[in-house]
């Protein structure tokens, strides 16, 4: 099993660098994962991460992109409630890249 080292601690990750244990996640680790993805975390990025984590806590899966888009629009203003904006925040895709930084498993299937 691959691992990552951060601040003297070892974390198990899968082959794509997603945390294996949900409980390993904290904001520091998220910051480290974001750095590796070359994503600079702004308050807007954290809104996405926090929404993903809250949704996951309830439903055991990340939300549909359309739900995320609407939630971000409601929080940050309607001009930001669109897929393009999410891709500006997370260029490698909100579902996969943002999930990774949020410490959630990688989505599988035809997505």
């Amino acid at each position, binding site marked *: 099993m691959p691992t990552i080292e951060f601040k003297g601690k070892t974390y198990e990750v*899968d*082959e*794509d*660098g997603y945390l294996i244990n949900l409980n390993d996640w904290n904001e520091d680790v998220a910051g480290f994962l974001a750095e*590796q*993805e*070359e994503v600079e975390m702004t308050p807007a990025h954290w809104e996405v991460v926090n929404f993903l984590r809250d949704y996951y806590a309830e*439903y*055991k*899966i990340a*939300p*549909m*992109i*359309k*739900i995320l888009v*609407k939630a971000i629009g409601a929080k940050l203003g309607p001009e930001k409630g669109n*897929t393009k904006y999410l891709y500006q925040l997370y*260029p*490698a*895709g909100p*579902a*996969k890249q943002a999930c990774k930084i949020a410490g959630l498993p990688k*989505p*599988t*299937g*035809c*997505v």
Partner: protein
Amino acid sequence: MAKVKFEVPELTGEIAIPGLKEDAAAAVKSHNAPAKDMTDLGFPTELVPDWKEKAVAKFAELLKKYRSLKVFMDICVKCGACTDKCHFYLGTKDPRNMPVARAELLRKVYRRYFTTAGKVLGKLAEAEDLTREVMEEWYTYFYQCTECRRCSLFCPYGIDTAEITMAAREIMDTVGLGAKYPLQTINKAITIGNNLGMPGPAIRSTLDFMEEDVKEQTGVPVKFPMDVKGADVLLITPSADFFATPHVESLAGYAKVFHQAGISWTLSSYASEAGNFGMFNGNYEHMRKIAGRIKVAINELKPKRLIHGECGHAWRVAYSFWNTLIGPFDSLDPKYPAPQHICEFTYDLINRGALKLDKTANDDFVVTFHDSCNVARASRMGNSPGGQFEIPRAIIRATCNKFVDMHPDTIREKTFCCGAGGGLLADEIIDLRIKGVMPRMQAYKAVKDSHGANFFALICAICKAQFTKVFPYYGYEMEEVGGVHQLVSRAIVLGGKEGI
């Protein structure tokens, strides 16, 4: 993961046959499956010590079980008709991605262990021992085949190359060499009921969201029902329709069509997946288990009809294999095909004048249609040959004013694969996916240049995910990718039941 820049093929609008570049794709490998998924699926977690004997024994078993496989091993005369027909060869230039060369990786081992000449003469009879290196080659190149069967169309003997790939993968799985993306997906479909691993409450939350969203947009309370006993129609659709964009826009389209037709319908939380990756890896038992959930849902919900959403390989499984896997469908109303494709259903309503469609709603688009490989070459729709080509196009023409087909050598039965089917929609092989889609992108560029095409209509969840991902690499917007029922969703006039 730091951003990696990929070499993206240049778009010229032409599909050129490339010069050979030995080993060009030799380093492209799918991740190995995690131990948990291997164990859950009944495979060893790593290569077993007696892997060679086990692999040869499994090969023998498959040759006995599938006479077709034995014929395909024996009959190839290396005429070369298939060589330039594969999108992966055209895109990667790697000669081992010529279908005949890829199949040769298995054939040379077949000759060594199952033909007299090969046993006696070895290399002189083009036979080779099954070594660790050969097995590595199998793993590399049989996961560089999307099982699209374009090469088979051009083979004078009709050799089904996909079946060869399936056999090789099944042998590798058996000895402990499995690929992560397809096997993890199969495991989730078997244990949770869909490829995404989406629990029932999450699906319901998504459907609630869609009900609100459609109401907001149209003012009409279109329902997205789940687990409703006694509904007329049970809809089996890919779980990506509950998660991804643009997939969900087609889900909205199906719901609006059912609403407008006044036909009650339901989804099932237990059978919440049309896709069946068991086929990709040639494992009958996995296929049966995944499809088995649909039988359970039919027994519980007691629908009269079984309708299938936009999913390519799944339609092959449904059309060709469901009857064997989970049939006969005696409890369903015999007046209707079982299963029936959502395109057949919508097309029938359009023909009867039961749907009012406002084509101007799609006036921003010049639409083209990409035939998905498993629909095009492994199934049918409607009552006449070629229905799988005509029916989706007829729906598109009924929903927009501007439609253009891509070059005839790249559509219908000659369609090029999206480059990610067959269990290859994995991120670690994105480089291969970008190169494999090249022929299709050239054909799309040509109709962009000639007709201004800007909407790429699809009826497959894998195609939708792949094109959304690769379009930006080629400089195109991901918003150009969408579903056929997304066009229906935009054009359909909800309200008064004119025509029924």
